[in-house]
């Protein structure tokens, strides 16, 4: 009994140490967000002389014409929320007809979607740009540096995995429910929106979490479609534009990073359980 307690005590201490170690980078960001330019380079590991500086730095970043943080935050929010709404809505209904239609066409379409999951972004990214530019030339619809273009891209790149996840879930829903609704006089779209959709809530959460983390943090796709320093840019683009500059103002970079992290961390603290569950469920499928 004594020995067992000593062993547990050792594990407790070890895990606590690793925990502190793994949160240390966040702590370094926090303390350096409250420093001035001189202090940040001379004493990067000391606690700040005046914590109050953090508000001055936050205000500087929020209003700076160099980083456009407030506009970027707004753009990131618009892009993430609209892409998620469209992806969930469109993938769920597509997956449902693919499961409930047992024809060769339906099977082939699903197979092609699944196969497309191995296509890396790298092979399509350059031609995507010239293809979008060409469409704009012929139709006048701006797809580069525009919300329309990036939303279309996120639907296209996110739909395969989303449909795959919905497909697996819908397969397990008994058909009797839908047959009964048809006998009661529901049309097929009504069956989907009234009967099936409410059952899909847990899988919607999984798809939201997986796509949400991806889209909010994504860098390469927005870099190509929106570009750094343009009217519409996401937070990672804004941070890259600011932090990638030749002269490194680390105090302000750290503040910008802190402000980029805070929304995600708050979101995680609110929805921790479903986020971890969603990430696990999404990986296992």
């Amino acid at each position, binding site marked *: 009994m004594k020995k067992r307690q000593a062993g547990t005590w050792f*594990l*407790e201490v070890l*895990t606590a140490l*690793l*925990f502190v170690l*793994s*949160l240390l*980078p966040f702590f*370094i*960001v926090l303390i*350096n967000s409250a420093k001035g330019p001189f202090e940040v380079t001379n004493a990067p590991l000391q606690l700040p002389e005046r914590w109050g500086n953090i508000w001055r730095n936050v205000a500087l970043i929020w209003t700076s014409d160099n980083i456009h943080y407030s506009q970027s935050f707004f753009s990131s929010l618009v892009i993430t929320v609209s892409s998620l709404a469209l992806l969930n809505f*469109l993938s769920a*209904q*597509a997956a*449902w*007809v*693919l499961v409930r*239609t047992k024809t060769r066409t339906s099977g082939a*379409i699903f197979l092609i979607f699944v196969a*497309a999951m*191995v296509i*890396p972004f*790298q*092979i*399509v*990214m*350059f*031609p*995507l740009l*010239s*293809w979008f530019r*060409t469409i704009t030339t012929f139709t006048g619809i701006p797809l580069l540096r525009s919300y329309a273009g990036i939303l279309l891209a996120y*639907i296209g*790149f996110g*739909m*395969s995995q989303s449909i795959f996840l919905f497909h697996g879930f819908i397969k397990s829903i008994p058909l009797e429910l839908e047959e009964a609704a048809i006998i009661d006089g529901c049309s*097929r*779209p009504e069956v*989907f929106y009234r009967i099936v959709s409410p059952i899909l809530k847990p899988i919607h959460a999984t798809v939201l979490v997986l796509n949400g*983390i991806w889209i*909010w*943090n994504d*860098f*390469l796709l927005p870099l190509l479609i929106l570009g750094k320093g343009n009217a519409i840019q996401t937070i*990672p683009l804004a*941070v*890259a534009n600011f*932090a*990638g500059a030749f002269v490194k103002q*680390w105090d302000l*970079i*750290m503040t910008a*990073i802190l402000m980029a*992290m805070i929304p*995600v*961390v708050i979101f*995680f603290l609110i929805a*921790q359980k479903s986020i*971890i569950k969603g*990430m696990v469920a999404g990986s296992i499928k």
Partner: protein
Amino acid sequence: MKRKSDSNFVFWLFLAPVLFAFAMVIVVPFILGVYYSFTTWSSSARVGDGTRFVGLKNYVESLADPAFAYSFIITIGYTVINMAVINMAALALALLVTTKIKLRNLYRAGFFIPNLIGGLILGYVWQFIFNNAMPSLGTMLGFTSWADPSNLILASNIKAIGAIIAAGSWQYAGYIMVIYVAAIENVPQELHEAAQIDGATALRRLFVITIPLAAQAFTITLFLTLVQSFKQFDVNVSLTNGGPSTMFMGKPIFGTELLALNIYDTAFLSNNLAMGQARAVIFFLVLAMVALVQVSLNKKREIEL
């Protein structure tokens, strides 16, 4: 008969939006991309404009380019080491947070959180740690050599690749950990109790019960870490952006330029879009091969079970 055509209509109606997006951003660019890799395509060209067919020229030149060969080699090395580091760290963390220690839920959340922050932003945090915090720590501890600019971790290409591994593992291990945790918690408690009665030590139970029964998770975690490492771009850009430069096969090249960054730089930095596209096709073929091997191994294992 009417029912049939009616349901056919709903089928296409519900699929139309995703089919449109799929065609626009995957099918058409994919076909164009494969075609462009055999031409003299340049960045200013619109679809079909002034490109000349040159056969395998872009591929042959890519394979003969030391920078590409170097990127390939370091990407394979990076992938293997990164997979090993992430999986060992994640498994160890998972075993720790599934013991009966207090605060285990808090620890799980803490280890998981770095995964929610994008690789681009984390790369800058680690750049600050390696370039500013480490020299300062060295001075505090009396190792003045740490503060010498030529001794910085990011100043040597091999150490800098190690830095990318450190930053990337710190980000990804928490995610892989939660997958292991789910697998470990699925192992029936009765097995452990029975083994304990038979006198098996904790270590023996780990190797005889937990690891074999959680093996399903290994297929997933190894595949996820493999693909994630092979495609690494964000941390690479913000932590080292390819630097420092080094010599390879008699040519000066970027010392930490992984494949994804090499593809990007070939297209935009060297302004050779067609060549970058050819490299992207090679990148795709390697990834597709890995995925095929993975699927067939999975099938084989499922039969054995």
